[in-house]
């Protein structure tokens, strides 16, 4: 079975810009994708520090692909793409 690895940033910037949202998202994603998804909360992904990049937080990393403005919809879409990609 194909599996996707998702890292959700739990660094300070991402937490302030959407900590509650990310917690809800992780719960929802686990229900939706069950065993096809491995979720990890990680430290700052280093995406937030340059100039205005904080505004696109929260960030996540899906199989090596960095995603800004992470939320349930955007992340679900990318995971579904990755899962159906072969």
């Amino acid at each position, binding site marked *: 079975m194909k599996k996707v690895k998702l890292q959700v940033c*739990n*660094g*300070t*910037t991402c*937490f*302030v*810009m*959407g*900590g*509650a*949202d990310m*917690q*809800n998202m992780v719960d929802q994603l686990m229900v939706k994708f069950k065993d096809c998804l491995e979720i990890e909360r990680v*430290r*700052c992904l280093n995406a*937030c*520090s340059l100039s*205005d990049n*904080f*505004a696109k937080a929260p960030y996540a990393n899906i199989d090596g692909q960095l995603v800004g403005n992470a*939320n349930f919809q955007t992340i679900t879409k990318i995971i579904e793409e990755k899962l159906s990609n072969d």
Partner: protein
Amino acid sequence: MTNEVLATKKLKNEILVRLVKAFMSDNFAENVRLIPYEMRPKGSDVPFRCCIYKERAILRSRAIAGLGFAMEEDDEKTLLSDFANRALERKKPEEYPLTVLQNACKGCPSSKVFVTELCQSCVAKPCLSACKFGAIEHVNGRSKIDVAKCKKCGLCMSACPYRAIVKTIVPCEEACPVNAISKGEDGLAHIDHDKCISCGKCVSACPFGATHAKSQIIDVLKNIKAGKKVIAMFAPALVGHLPCDASQIKEAFKKIGFSEVYEVAQGADVTAKTEAKDFQERLDQGAAFMTTSCCAAYNELVKKHMPELKPYVSEAKTPLYYTAEIVKKEHPDAITVFISPCFAKRREVLDNDKINYILNFEELGAILIALGIQIDTCEKQDFAYKSSKEARDFAVSGGVARSVLAAWRGKPDAIVPAIINGVNKTTLRDLKVYAKTGKCPLGNLVEVMCCEGGCVGGNAGLSTIKAATKKVGEYANSSYSLKDEH
């Protein structure tokens, strides 16, 4: 929290971060003026409103609140840079904590009762006879409400056997437990400050993010920048709202420039003991019940709307009150800043001259982002005073009652806690009944917290209630119990 609220929170936070960044730059006023243009540069997408100019106008208003001013008093021709300069010169924060962004408010329709397509044009027409104001007539067989005559009493709604009549609501009006906010004839929401208890429920409820707290972020930062001794006193709920270990909080505040950090849990220990003593005395005098006194919104509620409940409220002061007293005694020259999970504490801070300023968790978060402080890399440090487990758990619904129980030295079965987890129109009615009848059927120690979940559910929080409750609980459990203290 719903997604819409999170989206507006994010927008507000972004503005605060930009304000702090501007403050840190060498041209504060000019960089503040540019905020709306940086957020919506020429040719950029217009995510929320009709056009880029409107978006910028709204962002400008939000920045005014972020600078600590009332958006209602904006004449629209004053430059943001002038507001920035005024914020620098201001000696005292403004009087009323909340302000409404009027140009974000306009799109929201006033509340009305109307007949939907589900109306079956029935023969009995109970709606017609239910209406005392003659506001319903029959047009083409279907009921129709004359808005000019309708008083929105809702009698027709309950009379309709098909539930075909509905009432639309205005989210802020619906959320306010004391009817302090309402849409006026002009279609804009206005806050009646004589009624407002600063609970902030309207802030969380508005899907347009129109209600704001007037921020004191610049007031705090300018004192730090001036090299003053600025001391942070943080609410116990903070531990649940930051992605780090509690022991890293102290270092994070020091990095911002605070010279000392106190846990407000320290004062909560005093509150718990004082309240236990107060309760014993009241029981000895035959009192039927006592309510807690630490929630600022509840205290305002009693003062403004239910003075008859006052005799039942504990004389114990809030944890913040005792903490500020301790801090000012140890550091008489210090500027004290309370770090708050909610908006209601703004009122308490304005009324207490031992507390100079207040920042909420969102504002603290914005400062951390602007200064590039990754809190989970901060060094671990202990606090000078170790608060009890119960004091650290004050922030969770039921926590205050538990702390009084732990500090209780009387007969163990004399206390029966009753928990009011969130003030809303229903619990408000209950409280009124307790005051009127002089008794509370649920228990004799009534804990009242205005926010659902307790202070961990405060409306300026960053995490979910569930996650924050868990984290605060774990931190609390690492300490000793008031029960074992003699």
